[in-house]
């Protein structure tokens, strides 16, 4: 099947408007007879559920958590981008579009990104109307901050809890529809397969995680909004339950999976402390607005610090290497995430890591304390303030901006970041790759859509900070509700979809058999044992930098691990009760397949772009080297084993932006 991105004709800036003007609509009376399933209730799924229900469709929403409000979008800290230009600093739809395409290392689809930039301003209007308490200045107007990879301040935020507030906004919109009976909410349910009838997605098989019951749910369309697959690494900033299962199941039923190797390793996370570690905690990128990143210049100092003989605060300015400011003077500490992460890895690989494991760099706020403190002293009219007073005043400002993050750091690390620099290290955070979708956000299975992080479309090879929230809400509130209507307009005469069909029988049987296998297999190793092994292979060989040899090994190792898993995994308990190990076994089984496809994708992509860094392809000073011949989307078709997957290419055409070397120097 040839890939058709279905991007509308016409000038870039008119595409979306023209598209909306010409699509087919479903009249309100008919919407009442059309059902839509939405899997996942994060920003994308939650906003889509609410909007589709408002339009009049009957929505069934699924979440594996006990409430839609707990989806992992809630953990996004820093903010959400929007081309409002409230600061008058030269922002515009085009500039947001440009920054996003460039930030994605010219590996995203132009028309999708422009549409995203176009609707971004609406998101802020919408969220304010919903009562989202964004930060404001003393005049009562909305405040902005700046994020990596851009030269304007376009990020709206609610303390360090922007994702939480936006998700609660979407959740409240859902609540209104749940109360009206337009959304039927299935909490603690997990989608375990999609059902395709006559080539169209017509329902799902879900498992009630409390009772273990396998349920059939039919609908005229299925929307996958289940987030990213960062947990393939075991350790990531994702939630413990975040998984690829929904996306992987639709992939196995015919949806292409795009660019799995594009993974974002976030530069500012709390370093690992031991083998027992279950997850990594992010420190918002917004901290890089005010923090400076450094390691000692001299290896002797590094050794002394590791041995506890020297404190970082004792090093003078000329003994420190502010390597981001040194290498990228134009963007400094606010280079994009992929660049910042690789730079940290480069320093740590060279032996300059500042903690016991050698995998940490400093994020230092001393300069901000002084800058803000002096400013405050002037404002408050304090003449000749002492250094201590300045520091105190500065700390107050920093506390107001990032207090909760500083507190979180102190609780985890047991060090006071006001007195000593934070230690940070990159960690897996976001996956740009995902289910392939066209301009309508529809996968290669008709009637099956993928939105938010679950799809691949908008961020190319690297996502800019504060753009994930923007994309999730854009897809759910403003894009999908139009595009899905165009598709559903053909379904007004279809009538209710029955679950009593051979297709549902087969799908349910497969799901039940797999579950029966897990609980009956008397193996020797726990699910986590395999998950940790997989994670280690992924991190070592498909992590921040990759090479041919490592990737080939990874494919072999993952394949062998998967075989071992299917022979020796042990799942205690039964299938008819609350059984977290059982749920996890299914998720890890899918990660074990995805991981191999991931490595294969990374192997095939003989270039470096964004989050995908191939050691063979770098410039003399160690920057990513893109290859013209790889200016395409890799969309993989499932053919049984991951290694047999077939590659389809969607060429990426840039008509409105010049493809240049991506430089932040």
């Amino acid at each position, binding site marked *: 099947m040839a890939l058709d991105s279905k991007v509308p004709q016409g000038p870039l800036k008119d595409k979306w408007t023209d598209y909306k003007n010409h699509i087919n609509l479903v009249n309100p009376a008919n919407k009442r007879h059309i059902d839509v399933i939405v899997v996942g209730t994060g920003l994308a799924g939650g906003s889509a559920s609410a909007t589709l229900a408002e339009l009049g469709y009957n929505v069934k929403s699924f979440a594996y*958590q*006990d*409430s839609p409000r707990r989806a992992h979008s809630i953990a996004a800290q820093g903010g959400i981008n929007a081309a409002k230009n409230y600061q008058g600093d030269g922002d515009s739809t085009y500039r947001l579009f440009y920054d996003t395409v460039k930030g994605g290392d010219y590996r995203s689809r132009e028309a999708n990104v422009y549409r995203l930039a176009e609707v971004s301003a609406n998101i802020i*209007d919408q969220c304010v109307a919903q*009562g989202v308490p964004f930060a404001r200045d003393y005049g009562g107007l909305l405040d902005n901050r700046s994020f990596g990879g851009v030269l304007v301040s376009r990020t709206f935020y609610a303390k360090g809890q922007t994702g939480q507030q936006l998700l609660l906004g979407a959740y*409240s919109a859902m609540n209104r529809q749940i109360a009206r009976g337009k959304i039927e909410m299935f909490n603690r349910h997990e989608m375990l397969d999609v059902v395709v009838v006559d080539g169209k997605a017509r329902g799902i098989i879900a498992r009630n995680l409390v009772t273990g019951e396998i349920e059939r749910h039919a609908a005229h369309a299925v929307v996958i909004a289940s987030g990213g697959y960062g947990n393939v690494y075991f350790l990531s*900033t994702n939630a413990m339950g975040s998984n690829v299962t929904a996306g992987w199941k639709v992939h196995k039923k015919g949806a292409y999976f795009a660019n799995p190797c594009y993974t974002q390793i976030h530069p500012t996370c709390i370093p690992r402390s031991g083998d027992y570690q279950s997850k990594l905690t992010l420190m918002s990128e917004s901290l890089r607005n005010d923090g400076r990143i450094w390691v000692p210049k001299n290896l002797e100092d590094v050794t002394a610090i590791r041995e506890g003989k020297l404190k970082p605060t004792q090093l003078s300015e000329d003994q420190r290497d502010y390597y981001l400011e040194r290498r990228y003077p134009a963007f400094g500490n606010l280079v994009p995430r992929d660049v910042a992460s690789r730079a940290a890895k480069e320093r740590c690989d060279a032996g300059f890591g500042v903690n016991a494991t050698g995998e940490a760099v400093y994020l230092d706020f001393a300069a901000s304390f002084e800058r803000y403190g002096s400013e405050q002293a002037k404002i408050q009219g304090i003449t000749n303030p002492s250094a201590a007073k300045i520091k105190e005043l500065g700390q107050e400002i920093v506390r107001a901006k990032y207090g909760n993050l500083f507190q979180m750091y102190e609780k985890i690390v*047991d060090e006071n970041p006001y007195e000593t620099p934070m230690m940070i290290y990159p960690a897996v955070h976001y996956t740009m790759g995902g289910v392939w979708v066209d301009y309508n956000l529809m996968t290669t299975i008709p009637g099956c859509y993928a939105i938010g992080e679950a799809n691949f479309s908008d961020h190319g090879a690297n996502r800019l900070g504060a753009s994930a929230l923007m994309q999730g809400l854009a897809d759910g509130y403003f894009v999908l509700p139009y595009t899905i209507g165009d598709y559903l307009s053909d379904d007004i005469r279809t009538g209710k979809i029955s679950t009593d069909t051979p297709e549902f029988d087969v799908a349910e049987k497969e799901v039940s058999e797999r579950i029966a296998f897990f609980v009956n297999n008397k193996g020797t190793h*726990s699910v986590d044992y395999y998950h940790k092994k997989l994670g280690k292979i992924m991190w070592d060989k498909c992590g921040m930098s990759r090479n041919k040899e490592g990737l080939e090994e990874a494919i072999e190792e993952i394949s062998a691990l998967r075989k071992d898993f299917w022979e020796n995994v042990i799942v205690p308990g039964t299938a008819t009760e609350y059984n977290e190990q059982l749920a996890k076994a299914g998720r890890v089984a899918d990660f074990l397949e995805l991981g191999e496809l991931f490595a294969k994708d990374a192997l095939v992509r003989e270039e470096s772009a964004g989050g995908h860094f191939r050691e063979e392809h770098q410039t003399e000073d160690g920057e990513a080297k893109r290859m013209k011949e790889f200016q395409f989307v890799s969309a993989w078709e499932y053919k049984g084993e991951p290694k047999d997957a077939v590659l389809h290419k969607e060429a990426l055409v840039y008509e409105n932006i010049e493809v240049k070397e991506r430089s932040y120097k």
Partner: protein
Amino acid sequence: MNLTLKIWRQKDSNSKGQMVDYKVTEISEHMSFLEMMDVLNEQLVNAGEEPVAFDHDCREGICGMCSMYINGEAHGPDRGVTTCQLHMRMFKDGDTITIEPFRAAAFPVIKDLVVDRSAFDRIQHSGGYISVNTSGNTQDANSIPIAKQAADQAMDAATCIGCGACVATCKNSSAMLFVGAKVSQYALLPQGQVEAADRVKNMVAQMDLEGFGNCTNTGACEVECPKGISLDNIARMNRELMKASI
């Protein structure tokens, strides 16, 4: 360090539960409490026993999923943290730690330490929203200036993660801190004014219907709340309900 754990085990909502003792060894003080539980569960799985079921997800203190009552306190002895952020350095070698589910008649136990908090969702359904369509055709975000103080207070109320520690802690199993926070968030913002009266009436009615107890202002919820939601929110809700009713 080596620890003795007394953990509530209950097969399902219909079964009777009991406290069971477990031993864990070589626990690092840098572990989070849930990582310690992971160690226990790995130990149980390898011994062919059923692991202890507990709710958890983000493990960074924001999703509100984790919910243990540890040594007689919701989310354990530390302040301003959820269980997932509680670290083992709060305990000593040789300690005995009692771990129970969040208890309230309105939070029935699903299994072991997992409880059903859907009552919170139903309260939100009854009015925890502003009735505005998500069409995007609303007015410009900056056309309603909101005083910084009101916006900040609304944010402080909105920071609630819905974990239920307030209910679990309250001697009356009252949900007023949770409901008060939501009512306050909207009551403080101009966008929330239009429906303010109906909202508070409906949410309080649903709260009562769910079988939560009555607030007697002991203030325990505020102390145990991982997000430091203020008692002021309850007072504000009381005032809002009076305003709406009289």
